[in-house]
């Protein structure tokens, strides 16, 4: 816990920078609004104000600074506005309502989890095949590694449309995207893990006259667990990004991605920001769950790092 204070310091620093940035970012909008409300603004025409930077205009209109934090449609919302919007759309709305971020979050999360389950299961099976079959290893492994250097996320819009042509809509196309994004990290990590026992350990099993399937269940599989969890953590965040991006170019009506797009198109930045932060919290929670599971499992297996 000795890093708690440093972490809080960094987070506080980020928040302070954010709060300070709100003033210059929103000053032009605030000045226009203030003028409409009959307040005195220093360069009097909007045209003259165009020539000022956000910072310059703020210095010229010190009295307007508090107003930059209360705009309805700010360029940069302040933290308390984002928090307020999130509170309103998460806690105060019925979870089945289209206004509720919980509803949108569940739409994205369910696709993520289904896809992740499919992707990791297939990935683990393929990894077992790769370790046991040399031809498979030599054929597939280079492609699995190469796939990590390619932005395969770009396939997402096409998969939605292709599956749409076959009449498959809703959760499944998004899950397919999440599945293939989590598939490759799991294959690569699991193969690495299954191969991690060293020659000495393998020799020991041979002196015990262990069969190859005993070797798999008692040595290779347990040895792969730490690697597997590392892959899970990469895979689940990739799966979530995949599900969100899948909602973008296709005009999906529900989900985090759809909320971001709605906020963007209807000029309501608070909606976009709230969706963005809710997605970030979801991602953080998913990774935290896997970290906790990892710690618990490794401790039970006697592999916990001290």
């Amino acid at each position: 816990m000795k890093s708690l204070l440093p972490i809080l310091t960094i987070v506080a620093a980020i928040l302070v920078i954010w709060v300070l940035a709100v003033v210059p970012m929103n000053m032009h909008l605030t000045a226009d609004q203030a003028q409409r409300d009959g307040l005195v603004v220093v360069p009097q025409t909007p045209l003259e104000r165009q020539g000022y930077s956000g910072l310059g205009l703020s210095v010229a209109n010190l009295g307007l600074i508090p107003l930059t934090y209360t705009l309805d449609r700010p360029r940069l919302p302040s933290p308390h506005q984002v928090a307020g919007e999130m509170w309103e759309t998460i806690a105060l709305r019925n979870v089945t309502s289209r206004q509720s971020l919980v509803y949108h979050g569940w739409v994205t999360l369910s696709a993520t989890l289904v896809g992740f389950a499919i992707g990791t299961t297939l990935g683990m099976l393929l990894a077992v095949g790769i370790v046991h079959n040399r031809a498979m290893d030599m054929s597939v492994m280079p492609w699995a590694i190469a796939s990590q250097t390619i932005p395969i996320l770009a396939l997402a819009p096409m998969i939605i449309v292709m599956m749409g042509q076959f009449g498959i809509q809703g959760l499944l196309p998004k899950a397919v995207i999440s599945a293939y994004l989590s598939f490759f990290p799991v294959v690569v990590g699991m193969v690495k893990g299954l191969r991690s026992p060293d020659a000495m350990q393998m020799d020991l099993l041979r002196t015990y006259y262990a069969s190859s399937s005993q070797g798999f269940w008692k040595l290779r599989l347990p040895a792969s667990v730490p690697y597997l969890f590392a892959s899970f953590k990469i895979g689940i965040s990739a799966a979530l990004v995949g599900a969100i991006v899948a909602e973008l170019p296709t005009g999906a009506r529900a989900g985090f991605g759809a909320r971001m797009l709605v906020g963007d198109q209807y000029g309501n930045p608070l909606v976009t920001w709230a969706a963005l932060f809710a997605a970030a919290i979801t991602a953080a929670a998913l990774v935290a769950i896997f970290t906790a599971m990892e710690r618990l499992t490794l401790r039970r297996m006697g592999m916990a790092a001290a």
Partner: protein
Amino acid sequence: MTGPALISVLAVWAVGWFINARLAASHLADARIVRLLVPVIFGLTLLLIWELLVRMTGVSPIVLPPPSMIAERFAGSLPILWVDFEQTIVKGAMTGYVIGMICAFAVAVLADRSDFLTRGILPVGGFMAALPIVGIAPIFVKWLGSDWQSKAAVVAVMVFFPILVNIVAGLRDTSAMQRDLMRTYGAGYWQTLFKLRLPAAMPFIFNGLKIATTLALIGAIVAEFFGSPTVGMGFRISTSVGRLALDMVWAEIVVAAIAGSTLYGAVAWVEGRVTFWHPSQRK
């Protein structure tokens, strides 16, 4: 699925697999050429099966264009693909990558003087690196306009955190003994940094740089889904999907694949030159 289609697909698969199984079992299996040949044969087999499936089962080429059609489209629209490549990869992704990298270096070196800040940056940076940062794309497009500047900004933020965390972690990776040696030489902070700690951090730094190449491409392409001028790979993908011109989408994905592996390869090549001393680089 029709009978002949099924039989021919199975036949192709059997032949491809037979060749690979023989190659993998032969005494030549460790030769460089075979290690290269086996995945190539596997890839070609898959492409052939794809082609056969589309042609023989009557799947509409609009829904799933066969590889030959994609290759034709690729060869026929090289000028468009090149312009898109310049807009998205060169202007968007590469500019953002360089900006993000420079910022990460600056922050890492500034924070490095203080152990307190370092201990804060590592967990916070690692946390940020796991978040779906692409989501900031609509905000940046609104702030910086729809041209490549907004994409470069998204990419810069996306690559910043993984690179930062790796630099900071790398700079901590010297032993007390090594640092003591520098002190006995009378080396100051900057000399220790440039002669010992930065070189020692290079394997970490390149690890971050390699992760960031893929992120940069993803950021640049996805950000274009939120608004772009009428050029760019993300723009072309989203409009071609809308017009059901999926062969064009595949052609752009081929470009993205080539660009991604080339960038990664380039960083890995530089890494080999810089960290030739590291055990992982031994042949």
